[in-house]
């Protein structure tokens, strides 16, 4: 079966000659449907470079990024934008909700730009699944951090994307809310068979993931997954 996401010999460098910096060294990566993958590593290690290349926001210096058989590196910016709209859902730290739109209107906006990807019934089901049905009339400023991220996940799932890219989705949350969000990401990854990639520096969250990759100085390497970490065991109910 074809992988949802494939990276072949992808490199990203900045500058030239002796000032050249390799933000991402030769990387090969495969992700299948229904996989929740964590990319961990310290700040500046290249995690965000990886995420933005996968998300079609950054063009690699060399190599191929293939999403559902379409090579992003051969597409125009407009075509990549269309891929992002249809195939990729983003969950960011805290700022991906439009402050002046109610929760219901956040979804309505997506419906306008994505032209009716979800029926009303599907939307209601999604709201129930993410436990945001009671929040529809509220604005982002009225929501707690955890509620905001649940709405952000609902937005990311709106067009039934095949890939969800989450950049530090728990960074602004306390531990309980962070675990709640990871539980939710795991649940939807399995239920909706999406490929979910979570970039985080919070090692406590890796136990929710099927695969863990560590990024160190631009080199991506898969780590053997350990059992629940001691911190997580202590904090997780």
């Amino acid at each position: 079966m074809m992988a949802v996401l494939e990276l072949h010999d992808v490199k990203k460098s900045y500058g030239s000659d002796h000032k050249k910096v390799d933000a991402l060294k030769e990387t090969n990566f495969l992700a299948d449907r229904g996989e929740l993958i964590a990319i961990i590593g310290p700040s500046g290690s290249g995690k965000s470079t990886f995420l933005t290349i996968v998300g079609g926001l950054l063009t690699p210096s060399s190599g191929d990024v293939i999403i559902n058989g379409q090579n992003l590196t051969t597409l125009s910016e407009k075509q990549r934008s269309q891929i992002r709209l249809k195939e990729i859902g983003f969950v960011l730290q805290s700022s991906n909700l439009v402050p002046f739109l109610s929760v219901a209107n956040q979804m309505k906006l997506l419906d306008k730009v994505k032209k009716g990807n979800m029926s009303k019934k599907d939307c209601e089901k999604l709201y129930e699944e993410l436990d945001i049905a009671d929040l529809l009339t509220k604005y982002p400023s009225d929501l707690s951090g955890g509620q905001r991220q649940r709405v952000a996940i609902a937005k990311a799932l709106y067009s039934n994307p095949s890939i969800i890219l989450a950049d530090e989705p728990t960074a602004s949350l306390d531990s309980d809310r962070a675990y709640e969000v990871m539980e939710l990401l795991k649940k939807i990854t399995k239920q909706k068979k999406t490929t979910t990639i979570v970039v985080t520096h919070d090692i406590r969250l890796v136990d929710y993931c099927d695969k863990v990759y560590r990024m160190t100085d631009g080199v991506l390497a898969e780590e053997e997954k350990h059992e629940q970490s001691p911190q997580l065991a202590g904090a997780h109910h």
Partner: protein
Amino acid sequence: MFLAWQEIKKNKLRFTLITGILFLVSYLVFFLSGLASGLASLNREAVDKWEASAIILTDESDKSLSQSFMSIDQLEDVNAEKTAVLGQLNAIASNGDSKQNIALFGINEDEFIMPKVTEGSAFKEANEVIASDALKEDGFDIGDTLSLSSSDVELTIVGFTDDARFNAAPVLYADLPTFQEVKFGEAAEQNEDQINGIVVQDKSVSNLTQNEDLEAIEIQTFIENLPGYTAQKLTLNFMIYFLFAISSIIVAIFLYVLTVQKISMFGVMKAQGISSSYLSWSVVAQTFILSIVGTALGFALTLLSGTFLPAAVPVSFDLLVMVIYGVILMLVATAGAVFSVLTIVRIDPLKAIGG
């Protein structure tokens, strides 16, 4: 439009402020346009009433009616469909109680510049005049005997006509002999053929006269050469055009600040695949909504103010001009969104998600 309207609904105070500024600017533009039109009317309404195509003056008068002196015999040198002789002088008229600057026109009753009498009757006898009804507001009435500065002749108002002001002075229409008596006094008989100009109606304004001492002047050119007319018009128009620029600049600054505050939000939306064109269109639509509301409020308040203004204020609202200025105002205000659109187009979604 959805995004634009939702933001306006949520941030009412912010957008009320921008709309308020547009409203005040548009109110000022409409009011100035009314003032420009009113002041222009003060100068030209008597001339407009002639519905003439041109006026013949002496070449040496430099397009000034009061400085043009010619003989009535020079009518023979004028080749036009219709002609009307005209004598003109300025004076102060007094009825004993009130004094007013007036322009006295000497005309022939059977020629096309004879005004339509709206009250009273036309002049029939010597020393009778039809007066501009603007004089009524200054206390003049039918039957009043008028004494004029620099003349011993007394005139009697026998009727009124509307829209009869020339160079801001109300006009008194008299027959040619009465005019000559006022102007030349005892020498009137010797000067009975003296007039200031010949007003003509003709399809063409070229070849109206072959006499090198005479000049055929298009009516619009004649009006533009009335003392102070062009300077006044240019000043007010300059103010209006400057207000257009100001409204565009104000909107541009406001929207730019708002857009800069939303850069990270727009960046995230672009990262999510929402196109720059959708976001740009939203800002343009928002500006258009604000400019429509601001301009409409300015328009309404201008008309409302007009009903309360005393007659002494020379405003005259030309609805067509107001609509044209309103449309220009909306367009230039909307053009103020250009900087915001450029900012949106340049936003790198990569930065929004920390790449």
